[in-house]
């Protein structure tokens, strides 16, 4: 495995993009390191593809700077950039065979025919399509097309591989397999990957770092764990995973940040639990379902408790999701519990106690 070095391979500074009147990218600042697996995550229409196409050179910038490997890309057309792209539609050339597709970009390389044929065979081997070279490209399944597109891009050993929702056309099972394969592949080749996805789970699984985009701007950029545990804003918190959003009050008492959460109670939190900063007054507090618990009969806990009534039960086999109505909170709290040995699944209407901990609270801005 190649450890990512510190120097940024890709730099964007104040990048804006207009389509006519439409402001598609609104001041993107971004640095991506060599060897990093970077994801652009966000809802449909937030500008992920636009940003990726900007880096690839298919769209010009309206203003701002884009540099790859220390070189300004303003005057460099797509065919001369050290990037290669895996298109969402895969863009496999239908008139060429699998091998001809994979070898398409080798035309101008100074290699002998044999060397090229060997490179193509190796690339196909790498993506698990060894022996498929002679097939017609139109006779491939979705997953195979995706692999051909990958091999075709990787054979040129780009500095950056750009992937625009490469897995969205695959079924769930195939997608999960390919996620793991992509991670392995990226570690083996050591090439910087930039992945566009609107699937938060996919981004969390695969990435070293994730930029969450809304409306043409990056709202938060962090590693998956930070992003999941410490989202800065309500929008990010809602977009990634499940999050209970509770109204609360935040105040500074000396150096301590004191949060008063409706229905749960008061508690002191660490500064890192308010990653978006502290503005004293009314706020929204986030709590992940898995950081809450229920106190089953006969159990005791040193953590904090709040009374409630089971409102809804969804049984998943390994997990059970409870919606628990707690006095003082408008919406029921969602709580996920591992189904451990000896723990009953509670019925709707059962009075219960919610276990919570101020260490899992997140104070959200906006």
């Amino acid at each position: 495995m190649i450890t990512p070095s510190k120097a940024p391979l890709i730099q964007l500074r104040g990048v804006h993009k207009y389509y006519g009147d439409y402001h598609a990218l609104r001041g993107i600042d971004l640095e991506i390191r060599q060897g990093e697996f970077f994801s652009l995550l966000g809802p449909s229409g937030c500008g992920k593809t636009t940003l990726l196409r900007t880096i690839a050179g298919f769209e010009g910038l309206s203003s701002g700077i884009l540099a790859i490997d220390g070189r300004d890309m303003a005057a460099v057309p797509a065919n001369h950039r050290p990037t290669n792209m895996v298109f969402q539609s895969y863009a496999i050339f239908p008139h060429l065979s699998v091998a001809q597709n994979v070898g398409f970009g080798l035309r101008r390389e100074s290699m002998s025919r044999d060397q090229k044929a060997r490179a193509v065979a190796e690339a196909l081997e790498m993506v698990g399509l060894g022996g498929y070279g002679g097939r017609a490209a139109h006779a491939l399944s979705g997953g195979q097309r995706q692999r051909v597109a990958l091999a075709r891009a990787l054979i040129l050993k780009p500095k950056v591989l750009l992937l625009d929702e490469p897995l969205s056309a695959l079924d769930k099972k195939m997608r999960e397999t390919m996620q793991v394969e992509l991670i392995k592949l990226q570690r083996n080749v050591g090439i910087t990957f930039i992945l566009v996805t609107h699937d938060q789970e996919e981004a969390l699984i695969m990435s070293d770092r994730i930029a969450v985009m809304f409306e043409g701007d990056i709202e938060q950029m962090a590693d998956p764990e930070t992003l999941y545990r410490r989202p800065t804003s309500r929008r990010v918190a809602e977009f990634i995973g499940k999050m209970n959003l509770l109204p609360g009050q935040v105040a500074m008492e000396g150096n301590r940040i004191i949060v008063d959460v409706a229905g749960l109670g008061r508690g002191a939190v660490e500064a890192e639990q308010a990653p978006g900063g502290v503005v004293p007054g009314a706020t929204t507090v986030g709590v992940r379902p898995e950081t809450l618990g229920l106190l089953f009969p006969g159990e005791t806990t040193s953590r904090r408790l709040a009374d409630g009534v089971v409102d809804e039960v969804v049984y998943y086999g390994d997990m059970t999701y409870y919606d628990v109505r707690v006095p003082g909170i408008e919406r029921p709290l969602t709580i996920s519990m591992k189904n451990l040995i000896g723990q009953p699944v509670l019925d709707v209407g059962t009075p219960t106690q919610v276990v919570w901990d101020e260490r899992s609270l997140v104070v959200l801005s906006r």
Partner: protein
Amino acid sequence: MGLLDSSPGARAAALVAPPLIYALLLLAFPLVAIVVISFWTQSGLTLERTFTLANYREIFTGPIYIWGNANRWGVLPLSLFVSATVTLITVALAYPIAYFVSFVAAPERKSLWLFLITIPFWTSYLIRVFLWKVILGFNGVVNTGLQSLGIIQEPLEVLLYNLSSVIVTLSHAYAVFAILPIYVALEKIDRSLLEASQDLGENRLTTFLRVTLPLSVPGIVGAVLIVFIPTIGDYVTPELMLGSGGRLMSNIIQTQFLQLNNWPLGAALSIITMLAVGIVSLVFILLNRRWLRGRA
């Protein structure tokens, strides 16, 4: 017995019957009639209905139709040559136009462009041929223009009553039939393929040669056939542009049928022409298949 309670076979037959009758009456019957008549002979005003190869013998051994002589080509090769040239010119000129509409024109203007391209076809074909006569004729636009500019003294006779005038007129007349199939083929090309090619290092020209052109081959094949096949049969244009009688296969067939009243010879000439066109088209299609398979 109603259509609905009959057996599936009968029902299918009933459904197929109208188009089948139509096809038989309008396609198969005339064709068979021509084949049969081509083996008869005409003697004076009567049609001799005994089987004979005399017409074909005349076509294949005489100097006019196929072999020609030292001074002039045979009519059939000349006709094929004219059609092939028209096809080449038409398709070569149609391609850039189709490309422009498909790739360069703004999406919301495409239908306007197609509409503009079809405007000449609102006037009758005959009028368009006469227009070309006006342009190319002895006192036509081109000649008077060049004369008034002092570039030429005498009117150029090469412009009219000449094969090149037939070629110009036919190329113009069939332009739309070549533009449309090529346009459709170009429209079907997934634009991300062009970006993929660029992404893999090709510039616009090499992308055109490696992606756009090969993928538009079906449109080119369609355009070639659509222009080549009917231009062989067009007898109005040569007649008008070459003067009385014309000199091409279509004119000669027309003359045999309508003026000399020699249906059998006319029918035999038609059959030979049809075969020639069929063979040329088939060879073209096979070559293309071969080429396409070689690429895939």
